[in-house]
C-alpha cells in the first residue's frame, strides 16, 4: 500500500476539529444515557439511579476493586465528589499500599468487600446496586494513576478529567459498543472507559479469570464495534480461533510499538475495519493516532501546531499538551520541563517517517508493561553466588520483547541448572511474572563502560 500523506477523513487528528467534549463531571456526561457496561457476571445500565455516597465529599479515596465493573462504577460515583481518586491497578502489590496511602494522603479505601481494606484508612464498601450516578458536580477531582513501569514503589501521576478526556471527540456514529483487552484501572483502558461514557456508548469489560477465547466470544455476543488493545493483545487474539466471533468496525492498538506485521495481519483478518495505532502514555497522555496502516508516524507530525506538540530531543520523542499529567503525587522527578514531557521513547527518521526504536534507559516493554532492568538485576544480585547480572530486552514478535538475563557467578558452579533454577525461583517470588527473566544464561563477565557502569548497549 503506498503511503498516503493525507490522513483519511475519519482519522483526522483531533486538533483539526474544534469541537471537543468538555464534561463537567462524569455524572453530567452520562446523564440520561442508556449505555451499558457489560461484565462477565452481568450488566449495568448507566441511566440507573442510586443513593448518594456516604461522607466522601472532599476526601482522598483509594479505589481498590476486584472487578473492572466495580472500578468503573466507583469512578463515576467519586468523580466530582472526592478531592482525589487514586486508582489501584489490579496487580498492585499489597505491601506497597501503605506507602501509597501515606504519599497520596488517602483517607478512605473503597472496594467491593472488606478483603480490600487497608490498615490506616477508613473502608467504604462499594455497593454496586446503589451507586449514585446522577449527582451534580461539586469539586474538580484529581485522578491519580499508577505508571506501568518503574522500580519498587509505584509512581503515581495526577490527571484531571479535562486532561484525560482532551483527545475524545464527539461520537461520529450511534450504537457504538467498545471493547478493550486493557484494564480500565490503567491509563490505556481508562481512555476507553471515558470514550464509552462520554459517547453514550456501551463497553464490554474483561474479567480477570476469563480466557482469551471466552472474552472474544463474549465480545461477539455483545456486538463489539470498536476494539482496542496492545499489539501483543492483538497477536494473541489472532492466534485464537474464537476471533471468528468478532467483526469490529474499528481496531485500535496502543501501549507498545505497532509493527508493520501486526498492522498487516489485522488488515488481512478485518479487511473492512478502520485500523489505527495510537501513541499515549500515563505521563504524557494521548499523543496522536496514525490511521494510514503504516508503522511509525509521518515526519510532518513533528513541529506541527495543534493541541499536542511534538519534538525530538536527544533522539527521544517529547510531547507538550494540556493532556499530560500535571504532577507526580507524593514525590518524584519534575514531570514537566517548560510543559514538555520526555516520553522516553527513542525514535528515528527514515525518509518521510519516524519509527519507534524502543525505550531509552533500557526500559523493557513486555506486552505494554514496562520493566526497569535494574529492578530485576537487584533481585538476581541478592542471590548467593552471584557476582553481577545484566537484564535486557530481547525483541519478540509475540510480546514485543521478553526479559533476558546474563549472570556472572562468583566462582564456576558445578551444577549450573540448579543455580539457574534457584535464581529464577527467587525472581518469581519477588517479582510479578512478566518481570521474571524468560531466558537466563551464565557468562564469564559483563562489559563495563569507561565510567565503570554496566554497559547496556552490548
Amino acid at each position, binding site marked *: 500500500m503506498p503511503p498516503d500523506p493525507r490522513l483519511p477523513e475519519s482519522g483526522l487528528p483531533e486538533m483539526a476539529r474544534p469541537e471537543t467534549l468538555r464534561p463537567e463531571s462524569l455524572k453530567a456526561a452520562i446523564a440520561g444515557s442508556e449505555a451499558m457496561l457489560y461484565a462477565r457476571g452481568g450488566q449495568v445500565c448507566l441511566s440507573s439511579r442510586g443513593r448518594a455516597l456516604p461522607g466522601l465529599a472532599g476526601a482522598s479515596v483509594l479505589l481498590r476493586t476486584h472487578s473492572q465493573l466495580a472500578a468503573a462504577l466507583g469512578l463515576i460515583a467519586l468523580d466530582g465528589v472526592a478531592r482525589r481518586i487514586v486508582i489501584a491497578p489490579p496487580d498492585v502489590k499489597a505491601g506497597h499500599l501503605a506507602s501509597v496511602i501515606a504519599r497520596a494522603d488517602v483517607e478512605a479505601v473503597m472496594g467491593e468487600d472488606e478483603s480490600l481494606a487497608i490498615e490506616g484508612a477508613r473502608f467504604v464498601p462499594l455497593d454496586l446496586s446503589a451507586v449514585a450516578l446522577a449527582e451534580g458536580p461539586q469539586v474538580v477531582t484529581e485522578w491519580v494513576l499508577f505508571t506501568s513501569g518503574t522500580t519498587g514503589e509505584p509512581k503515581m501521576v495526577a490527571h484531571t478529567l479535562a486532561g484525560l478526556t482532551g483527545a475524545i471527540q464527539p461520537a461520529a456514529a450511534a450504537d457504538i459498543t467498545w471493547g478493550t483487552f486493557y484494564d480500565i484501572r490503567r491509563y490505556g483502558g481508562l481512555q476507553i472507559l471515558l470514550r464509552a461514557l462520554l459517547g453514550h456508548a456501551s463497553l464490554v469489560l474483561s474479567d480477570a479469570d476469563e480466557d482469551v*477465547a471466552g472474552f472474544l466470544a463474549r465480545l461477539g455476543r455483545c456486538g463489539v464495534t470498536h476494539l482496542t488493545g496492545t499489539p501483543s493483545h492483538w497477536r494473541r487474539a489472532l492466534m*485464537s480461533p474464537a476471533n471468528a466471533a468478532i467483526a469490529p468496525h474499528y481496531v485500535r492498538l496502543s501501549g507498545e510499538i505497532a509493527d508493520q506485521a501486526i498492522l498487516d495481519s489485522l488488515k488481512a483478518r478485518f479487511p473492512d475495519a478502520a485500523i489505527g495505532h495510537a501513541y499515549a502514555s500515563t505521563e504524557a497522555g494521548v499523543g496522536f493516532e496514525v490511521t494510514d496502516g503504516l508503522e511509525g508516524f509521518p515526519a510532518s507530525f513533528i513541529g506541527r501546531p495543534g493541541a499536542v506538540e511534538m519534538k525530538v530531543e536527544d533522539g527521544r520523542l517529547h510531547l507538550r499538551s494540556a493532556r499530560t499529567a500535571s504532577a507526580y503525587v507524593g514525590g518524584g522527578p519534575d514531570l514537566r520541563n517548560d510543559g514538555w514531557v520526555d516520553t522516553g521513547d527513542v525514535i528515528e527518521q527514515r525518509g518521510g517517517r519516524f519509527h519507534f526504536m524502543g525505550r531509552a534507559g533500557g526500559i523493557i516493554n513486555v506486552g505494554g508493561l514496562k520493566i526497569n532492568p535494574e529492578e530485576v538485576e537487584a533481585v538476581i544480585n541478592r542471590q548467593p553466588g552471584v557476582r553481577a547480572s545484566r537484564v535486557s530486552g530481547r525483541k519478540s*514478535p509475540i*510480546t514485543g520483547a521478553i526479559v533476558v538475563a546474563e549472570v556472572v557467578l562468583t566462582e564456576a558452579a558445578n551444577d549450573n541448572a540448579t543455580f539457574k533454577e534457584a535464581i529464577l525461583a527467587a525472581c518469581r517470588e519477588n517479582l510479578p511474572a512478566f518481570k521474571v527473566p*524468560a531466558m537466563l544464561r551464565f557468562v564469564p563477565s559483563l562489559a563495563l563502560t569507561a565510567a565503570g557502569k554496566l554497559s547496556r548497549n552490548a
Partner: protein
Amino acid sequence: MSVAAMVVDQFRQVAREQGKEIAELNDDTVLLESGLDSLCFAIIVAQLEDRLGVDPFTAAEDVYFPVTLGDFIRFYEDAAGSQAA
C-alpha cells in the same frame, strides 16, 4: 531431530520451566488452548530462533498468526526450508 520434533520438544521444555500444565499435543491442538500463555510462546519463538537460526514471524513477508500446533510447525518448516534453499 526434525523441525516438528524440535518444536514439540520446545513446547514441553517451556511448559516445564514456566510451571504450566500442558495439554496433549497434536497437529490440531489450538495453541491458546494448549495451556501456554503469550509469554510462553514468546520464549518458544526465541528458543527456536537460537536452535534453528530462524524466526518466521519476523522473516515472513506474509505474516499470519498460527492458530494450531500444526500451523505453527508448518510455519517453521517452511521458513527452515526456504532458508536452506
